[in-house]
């Protein structure tokens, strides 16, 4: 399967600026159905198709525009096709020699350097005579209109046939327009033109069948991409009807028109005289098909074999069966619109002009009919899918969040459990002495040794929060909760992590868990709690209300800091930052030494623009814990916001040097234990962010050289001008 977009995946090299390739880009794509090989080949084929089509178009456009230029009176409405057609018709009778000569001369001039102009000139003559005689099968009857620039915006332009010709060519070959073209730029023409001429020759020999075939294939794939859709509008869609015509080779893109191909013209001539309408052709085909369908059996789509497929993914299954000879498959029009009277609504899927193996395959896999019952099942399934998908909003559903990724090498791993416990104890008592990376490493070793230690998982989670590794923190905290569901601290911490990551629904859930398990507050939670969590609005109001009531249970100065912290987090989620500030302040009055909380207060204050107050809070956090990198960085942000770029830079530099020290410590311990530092992931999570902030400060301070040093992450370059 493939949709439009995988035909043009790769961006700037998508080939010439062409509308068709663009269309492909925008259409739906279904990864689950993708088959790598087919997709890639078809992509290439499509680009090639368009390169070639484009070339042919361009060459014709060249001559066409030339003739138009000579024959068209000034001021002709560029959109009046009929008049243009007459003009072109006239010129077909007698080749316009003068401009051709001018062109050739001009062309020769450009080609002189290559010494090959004689050949090319001949090629050109051939090409233009081909056009003039009307022998080109696709374009001959197509009226072309001149460029607006010719008679419109750029009317002041000198009537240079060369430029005009290229004006049209440009559209397909990314040449700059003549309106913008400088005289010197004309040197680019020969290079551009040569391949066009050569291709034109090839085209004349080969005809246009090949690129039309590729185009058809693409269109068929577009059809294939929607063939599993039950959307009734698809049947009547004019766009898909065009895709069907392209797929069947009955229409093609010529110049800037979608036109009937020879094949279609012949076909329609055979059936209904000279009127080349798709509708009639289509009806005829539909008639055949419906007759065929009626002969085969109806219903019974959900055979046991298929029911199994349905469990996996009905659409995928169906698509797979379509994948091979997709080119031949079409989704035809509404059978009721044809002249055949149907006893029952047979099918949305009528296949046409099927090759025999396709038919066999199709029949083998599924009966091509969907009866009413089947369709209901499909609708039900779609409905169900859309319902379940809503559950994912604001939810931490990524399975990665439940997996804790350990560092691959850990020099604490071989340590005796008792010694390790001592080390960790020592680290906890002296948070300044141990680096964060080192501490996390030790704790990881501890949980590897005793994976059932919920308290250690909780500590690890808290440290990972401090380390700005929220995903790891979530994983560790989830593990802690799975081992000890009653751990209040773990629920609260997980609520904070969810908030930081934007999983608001989960944050509310965790905070609700906390209050529902708290011995003092659980009486507040009503029995019908789950009903209040049904949608996001109700959830927010309900959980906030619970915590406010919990806060009121401890009147006066006797408040519970945990409740205040949780309320602060809740008000952060609901962006009521002023209230959040009050809550954090209240909590800090009970826990003045909680540096994480000070940092959180500062961040909340910064949200409402109180940078001065925020700085004071960060400052307090750093007093308590000088190597708290996040607070350093936040302080630098607050300084930047106040226009104090030097202070901002200094804070960044301190943060970076702390990280450097941290990494060095881990590195040296790793080396001592004979381990490859590459297998360890020291705390460098924020490093790039801080370097970016530092670079901005350097620009603001007018230090472009030091700003460049940020690119290299060269800390030493700053030591001459800054102290840190």
């Amino acid at each position, binding site marked *: 399967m493939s949709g439009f977009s995988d035909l043009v995946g790769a961006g700037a090299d998508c080939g010439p600026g062409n509308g068709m390739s663009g269309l492909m880009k925008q259409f*739906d794509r279904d990864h689950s159905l993708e088959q790598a090989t087919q997709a890639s080949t078809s992509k290439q084929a499509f680009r090639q198709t368009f390169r070639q089509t484009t070339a042919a178009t361009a060459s014709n456009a060249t001559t066409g525009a030339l003739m138009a230029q000579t024959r068209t009176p000034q001021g002709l409405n560029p959109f009046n096709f009929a008049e243009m057609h007459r003009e072109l018709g006239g010129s077909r009778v007698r080749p316009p020699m003068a401009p051709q000569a001018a062109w050739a001369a001009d062309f020769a001039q450009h080609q002189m350097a290559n010494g090959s102009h004689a050949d090319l000139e001949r090629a050109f003559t051939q090409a233009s005579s081909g056009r003039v005689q009307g022998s080109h099968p696709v374009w001959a009857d197509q009226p072309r209109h001149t460029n607006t620039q010719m008679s419109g915006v750029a009317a002041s332009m000198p009537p240079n046939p060369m430029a005009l010709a290229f004006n049209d060519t440009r559209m397909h070959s990314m040449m700059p327009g003549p309106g*913008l073209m400088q005289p010197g730029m004309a040197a680019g023409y020969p290079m551009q033109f040569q391949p066009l001429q050569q291709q034109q020759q090839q085209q004349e020999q080969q005809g246009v069948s090949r690129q039309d075939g590729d185009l058809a294939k693409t269109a068929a794939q577009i059809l294939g991409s929607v063939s599993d859709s039950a959307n009734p509008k698809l049947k009547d869609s*004019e766009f898909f009807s065009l895709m069907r015509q392209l797929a069947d080779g009955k229409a093609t893109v010529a110049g800037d028109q979608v036109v009937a191909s020879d094949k279609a013209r012949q076909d329609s001539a055979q059936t209904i005289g000279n009127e080349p309408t798709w509708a009639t052709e289509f009806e005829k085909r539909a008639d055949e098909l419906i007759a065929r369908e009626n002969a085969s059996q109806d219903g019974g789509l959900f055979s046991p074999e298929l029911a199994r497929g349905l469990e996996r993914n009905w659409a995928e299954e169906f698509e797979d069966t379509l994948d091979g000879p997709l080119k031949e498959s079409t989704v035809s029009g509404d059978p009721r619109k044809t002249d055949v009277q149907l006893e029952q609504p047979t099918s949305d899927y009528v296949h046409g002009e099927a090759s025999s193996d396709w038919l066999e395959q199709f029949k083998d896999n599924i009966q091509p009919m969907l009866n009413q019952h089947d369709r209901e099942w499909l609708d039900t399934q779609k409905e169900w899918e859309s319902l379940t998908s809503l559950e994912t909003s604001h939810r931490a559903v990524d399975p990665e969040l439940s997996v804790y990724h350990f560092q691959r090498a850990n020099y604490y791993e071989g340590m005796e459990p008792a010694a390790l416990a001592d080390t960790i104890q020592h680290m906890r008592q002296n948070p300044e002495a141990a680096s964060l990376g080192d501490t996390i490493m030790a704790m990881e070793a501890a949980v590897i040794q005793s994976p059932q230690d919920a308290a250690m998982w909780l500590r690890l989670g808290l440290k990972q929060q401090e380390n700005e590794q929220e995903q790891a923190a979530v994983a560790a905290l989830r593990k802690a909760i799975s081992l000890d569901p009653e751990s209040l601290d773990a629920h609260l911490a997980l609520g904070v992590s969810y908030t930081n990551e934007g999983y608001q629904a989960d944050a509310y859930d965790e905070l609700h868990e906390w209050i529902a398990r708290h011995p003092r507050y659980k009486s507040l939670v009503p029995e019908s709690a789950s009903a209040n969590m049904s949608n996001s609005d109700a959830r927010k109001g309900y959980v906030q209300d619970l915590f406010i009531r919990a806060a009121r249970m401890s009147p006066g100065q006797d408040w519970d800091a945990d409740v205040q912290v949780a309320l602060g987090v809740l008000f952060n989620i609901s962006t009521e930052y002023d209230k959040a500030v009050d809550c954090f302040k209240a909590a800090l009055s009970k826990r003045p030494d909680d540096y994480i909380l000070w940092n959180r207060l500062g961040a909340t204050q910064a949200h409402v623009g109180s940078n001065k107050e925020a700085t004071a809070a960060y400052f307090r956090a750093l007093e308590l814990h000088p190597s708290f990198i996040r607070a350093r960085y936040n302080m630098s942000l607050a300084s930047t916001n106040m226009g104090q770029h030097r202070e901002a830079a200094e804070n960044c530099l301190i943060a970076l040097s702390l990280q450097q020290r941290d990494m060095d410590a881990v590195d040296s311990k790793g080396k001592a234990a004979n381990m490859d530092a590459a297998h360890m992931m020291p705390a460098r999570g924020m490093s790039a962010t801080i370097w970016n902030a530092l670079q901005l400060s350097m620009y603001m301070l007018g230090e472009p050289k030091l700003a460049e040093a940020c690119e290299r992450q060269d800390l030493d370059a700053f030591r001459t001008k800054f102290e840190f």
Partner: protein
Amino acid sequence: MTAKHRTTGFKGYSVQFSPFSDQLLAAATSANFGLVGNGRLSILNALPGTEGLAPRQQYDTQDGLFDLSWNEAHENQIATASGDGSIKLWDITLNGLPVARWHEHKREVMGIEWNYIAKSTFLSSSWDGSVKLWNPAIPQSLRTFNEHTGCVYASTWSPSQSDQFATCGEDKTIKLWSVNEPNGKSLATFGGHNDQVLSLDWNKYIPEQLVTSSVDRTIKIWDIRNPRGQVAMFGPFEFSVRRVKFSPFSPNFIATAGYDMSASVWDVRNGAVVYVHDLHKEFVFGIDWSLFHPGLMATCSWDEQVHLFQVPVVK
């Protein structure tokens, strides 16, 4: 009741209400589904109460038109994005030719977005991978932002900071930028969509919230403070959403138009669809909210129809 106007022969790509008049809207359209051929800018008069849509003017172009944006500083001007890489500025009091024309993009220009705070500038996003900043009085672009590794489909300005904007594109990313950033580098890149990101819009009330729609058939809500992951995801749907727009009247509603041939209004708080406009018969490419009448919406589609309709106002 739905007012309809047929853009005969031209498939609708984008529609936008005038920011100055509640009775004017414009549609950018292309012949042949935008594959090849001409474009047309149609100016329509919206009669009060969705009574009708009356054609006012039309302007034809050589190449298809894919997007348009009204000049926020000049009530009669509209900028259009063209398939040939050019940008044209039209004055609807004049007939015929554009009043200005820029041609720097090397490929199709897919999006054009006027800055509604710093009203002298606008952005264009192109398949050549670049985003350009323009001033209508200056013949060259002011700045070029090259960082996307593929076509850029759309841009949106921050509603609170006149220098900030976000873009999305083929490389599956959303990028946040400042026009003042000295190196022309993005401030942040958001990954998380599994395929090309087709459209994005900034919440007009929550300065940190963005919505995106992608070929991976999902809609995602992002918080720009957290580039690591989305806040919410809706979908995957059967078909992808081509254009997504936040309501100018509420922080909670988005309108979407897409390949399912319908337009919908969503409540982003719970992902509930509160309104579906199902009258189009082909892909719906353009959708816009009236800035004057809450719930008044316009859509345009490949069925050559521009629709004007009233969505019940919900809180």
